[in-house]
């Protein structure tokens, strides 16, 4: 049996729309508790066998939370339809819930099918924490028959329950939050047409009753609102919050909440189930109010809200429309939870992605892009717009000719690129390409590890463990070995003792000095290694030199105040290396070798008073190259009583 390989990202669920990407999340009720956003959605699932296949199907509730609206944590299942005494098991009718906090207790309201009787009832669970566990009342709330409960707690602490059942109804709740206080009443003043899913809130003294509403015969749901000066109306109809979904998704359902000084509209759409609008996913967009309290109609976006750290995965298929010449497709139509990718169809195509925070990216930052292309091209990332500064031009090479011919056309590739410019703070990205026909799943910026810095002036010392980190390193000499298996002792003696440049075994070069080695012009670099091991591979890489099939030369000078007898040079290298002290070869590490601390030891040596010149040559075929070296005394302790000076 061969199964197609699928990739689901473990990376944070980013608040681009939809915000939750590993399950369906409908009817999103968002509430702020303890400075954190909590989300209580319905949980659509594909109907199991025996259930009506073309209808809504909901067996349980999850709760999610987020600090920044970009990373959401799933706290798991609150309750299932088989866990509550009054609920008919396997009824798959856990419609829109709500959760509020009163006097330190959290009350979770949910509709379900009762064991006896028709229609739907509303139940309550109580917890000390917004994520549960909840203890459920054995009976549904008497007198509240319907779905989609919503609770408004007024400034005076009085609570009101609203729900949908033969229109929208409301009623005061008793202090215990589990019983109606009196008879429920129909909410008056709402427009004609189908309504459900009430969400009530209060802002600047105005009571808002908001609800999904079918405004025309045969239409689909909008989000609309009415206002009042009292919690149970009568209401004055004001207009739309959001128009019908343009793709025909029949339902919408929402909540409106203030968080850290901004107001947000949570709503749903069937993006992750484009052919079946009863599997829905939560979205967030900002919502704003006119001075008089009117709601400014919200246009749904796929970018959503929240600021993406530049070092998180940025799914640019969730771009800010309009863009130009951009198509968006599922990574895998059989598993939409894998998300989308964007294609820049031609060379004039572009898109912008809003609100990327570069404050976490240092000067060594680079770009990673997951792309596929039909031709070799360049992906161009600029700041803000077409006229903005260019951050990176990522070479997209999907085809190479010659010895290492490769054809990756149409295959996803993870590519990296250095950056020409790093923006400050939060900014927008503009993305285009040189030739078009290139698709992008995500991009991400990343800080590069530190390997070297230019040698500071004056003297250095060995580190606490005795490792010598200050070196003059020569750009790699081309030595095109395709395997390390040739590094026999005799090969190495021949090739290490060959003269590549003048005074190779005698001079101490200056940083910046150049050597001519056959056709190559190579430069000496005075460097301090950030690590105990000198990463020659990175030295070559950072200087954009050849990294494989190379021979490195290094020189450093050990200054001793007095003679230090009976020490050994202790070295490890990847791959083979040779070591000379004051012109004499003291150690040869041969073969295909990995760098190991104290791998090889010289015989006993004497470091003379004054200058001692230590030289090394390291050769490598494929793979990383590095070395570590120190002096150890007779008892194996690091020798550190000297200075290192390459000036």
């Amino acid at each position, binding site marked *: *049996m061969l199964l197609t390989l699928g990739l689901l990202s473990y990376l944070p669920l980013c608040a681009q729309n939809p915000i939750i990407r590993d399950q369906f999340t409908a009817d999103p009720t968002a509430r702020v508790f303890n400075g954190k956003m909590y989300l209580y959605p319905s949980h659509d699932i594909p109907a199991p066998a025996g259930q009506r296949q073309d209808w809504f199907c909901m067996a349980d509730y999850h709760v999610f939370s987020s600090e920044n609206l970009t990373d959401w944590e799933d706290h798991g299942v609150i309750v299932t339809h088989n866990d509550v005494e009054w609920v008919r098991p396997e009824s798959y009718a856990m419609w829109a819930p709500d959760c509020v906090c009163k006097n330190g207790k959290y009350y979770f309201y949910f509709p379900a099918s009762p064991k006896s009787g028709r229609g739907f009832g509303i139940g309550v669970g109580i917890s000390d924490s917004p994520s549960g566990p909840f203890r459920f009342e054995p009976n549904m709330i008497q007198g509240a028959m319907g779905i989609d409960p919503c609770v408004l707690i007024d400034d005076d602490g009085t609570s009101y329950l609203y729900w949908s059942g033969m229109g929208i109804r409301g009623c005061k709740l008793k202090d215990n939050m589990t019983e109606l206080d009196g008879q429920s009443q129909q909410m008056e003043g709402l427009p004609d047409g189908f309504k459900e899913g009430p969400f009530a809130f209060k802002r600047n003294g105005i009571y808002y009753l908001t609800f999904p509403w079918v405004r025309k015969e045969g239409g689909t749901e909008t989000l609309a609102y009415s206002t009042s000066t009292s919690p149970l109306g009568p209401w004055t109809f004001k207009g739309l919050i959001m128009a019908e979904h343009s793709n025909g998704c029949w339902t919408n359902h929402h909540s409106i909440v203030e968080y850290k000084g901004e107001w947000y509209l949570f709503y749903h759409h069937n993006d992750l189930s484009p052919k079946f609008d009863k599997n829905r996913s939560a979205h967030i967009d900002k919502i704003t109010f006119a001075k008089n309290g009117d709601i400014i109609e919200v246009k749904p976006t796929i970018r959503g809200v929240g600021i993406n750290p530049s070092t998180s995965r940025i799914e640019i298929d969730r771009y800010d429309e309009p863009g130009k010449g951009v198509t968006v497709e599922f990574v895998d139509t059989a598993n939409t939870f894998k998300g989308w990718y964007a294609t820049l169809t031609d060379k004039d195509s572009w898109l912008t992605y809003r609100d990327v925070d570069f404050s976490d990216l240092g000067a060594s930052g680079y770009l990673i892009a997951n792309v596929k292309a039909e031709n070799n091209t360049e992906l161009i990332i600029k700041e803000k717009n077409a006229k903005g500064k260019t951050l990176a031009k990522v070479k997209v090479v999907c085809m190479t000719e010659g010895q290492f011919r490769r054809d990756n056309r149409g295959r996803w590739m993870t590519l990296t690129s250095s950056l020409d410019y790093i923006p400050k703070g939060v900014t927008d990205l503009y993305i285009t390409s040189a030739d078009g026909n290139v698709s992008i799943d995500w991009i991400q910026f*990343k800080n*590069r590890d530190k390997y070297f810095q230019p040698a500071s002036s004056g003297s250095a010392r060995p580190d606490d463990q005795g490792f010598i980190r200050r070196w003059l390193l020569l750009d790699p000499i081309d030595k095109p070995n395709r395997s390390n298996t040739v590094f026999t002792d005799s090969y190495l003696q021949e090739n290490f003792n060959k003269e590549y440049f003048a005074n190779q075994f005698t001079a101490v070069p200056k940083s910046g000095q150049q050597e001519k080695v056959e056709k190559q012009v190579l430069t000496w670099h005075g460097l301090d290694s950030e690590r105990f091991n000198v990463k020659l591979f990175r030295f070559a890489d950072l200087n954009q030199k050849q990294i494989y099939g190379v021979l490195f030369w290094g020189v450093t000078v050990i200054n001793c105040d007095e003679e230090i007898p009976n020490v050994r040079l202790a070295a490890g290298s990847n791959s083979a290396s040779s070591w000379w002290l004051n012109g004499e070869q003291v150690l040869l590490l041969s073969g295909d070798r990995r760098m*190991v601390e104290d*791998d090889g030891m010289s015989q006993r040596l004497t470091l003379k008073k004054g200058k001692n010149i230590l030289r090394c040559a390291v050769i490598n075929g494929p793979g990383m190259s590095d070395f570590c070296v120190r002096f150890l005394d007779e008892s194996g302790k690091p020798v550190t009583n000297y200075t290192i000076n390459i000036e």
Partner: protein
Amino acid sequence: MKSLIITLALSATSLSITAQDGQPYIHDPSTIAEREGKYYTFGTGGGGLISEDGWVWHGGAERPGGGAAPDVMKIGDRYLMIYGATGGGLGGGHNGRILTMWNKTLDPKSPDFKFTDAVEVAASDGMEDNDAIDPCLLLDPRGRLWVSYGTYFGTIRLIELDPKTGFRKKGNKEKDIAIDCEASDLIYRDGWYYQLGTHGTCCDGVNSTYNIVVGRSKDVTGPYVDNVGRDMFHGGGKMVINAGDRVCGPGHFGRTIIDEGVEIMSCHYEADFDRSGRSVLGIRPLLWKNGWPVAGDRFKSGTYEIESERRGYSLELAVDFVRMTQERQRFWNMDANQPLVKIENQKLSDVISTWPNGNIGVRTGDYMFRPHQRWTVTPVAEAGGYLGGPYYKIVIEGTDRALTATANKELTTVPTFSGSDEQLWRIEQLTDGCFRIMPKRIPGETGLNTTYVLYSAGDSSPTLAKWDFRSDNSKWNFRNQ
């Protein structure tokens, strides 16, 4: 009849038992997993091996996704598979991905055989000092699930997964725990975490110097330090297994605990010199010496004293002790200048006529290298095996008289080896270097015997009793002296 029964051509063939039997061709085998009595290991490229008995291996295991070097572990009632896709220089880059997926079974013929969608739990971007392939799994004693991965291209990294989902644990950050290794593995024993890594040259056939080294730490996040105090993050490591015995290039360690005190390690050998230098599955006893794991040697056919760990007495036929004659020399009037003569060992022909013809019981006694104490142990072809070894027959040297388990869980010898299950013995080296010896089947009992072992009831009285690693009564040594 007192004829000499000397079986020169033993019924056991000269079975090559360097590695496993069958067609055990694999590279980068996952830790051996067991499912309904069958054993599975998965390798680079997508396939894997299946064994009905743990000894004879054939292809047939299936894993989608290709890529390299998987590991597999049973968690709850499901198997978690982890593997690396791309990276490793495959396709030219070091941008690798570590993926996990679940299956209810490992048996491709089962109707339940279906892998869940692979989920990415770690990746390397090609620029950084890491190459996200070669993952391994460790479930620690507190139920936390760890993964280490990486190659020579940079560091070995540690991450944590959620054992319920196989996803990366939320907020978990990678930790670099070693350099210059590949095919790393993590194991836990007695308060120590051990990191095993493969060093040396891979994929070079009979010239591969691949070998497995180890460091240990009290904390899963390291530092993992070797026997001379060197951090694996500085390239340290103590040898666990390297070339020898006509195989070279052991790599990709996996540990399987069979019983308390009975452990094996799995690996591949880059080249089996008896199998055209192919890469094959290797299974060796895993010994623990002073808190360090070390590969035991494969058990070799030969003639041995079978010595009890209890008293040091040796397994012998319950027959008359036949005295040897010697010209007595009193030490107080010995002539030191008299030429020395060599005294021959007592021979089978010297004593066999004194032995009964039928079944002869066994006991343990002082070892005097006499024929009734010398046992020839050879693998029996076609008898199959158990995890890591073939079944053996144990006969008195030069005869076909075979050690046999009896229905009342005692021991005897029969004059002629018949190949029946009670005459077949499973021999496993223990973590302390001793051996346990158990009959394949106890007459009259259904199913294979996995409980009763050769056991010292008294100093002189062997029997069969339940395996108990904590008792030296359960343990034996094979000595050739």
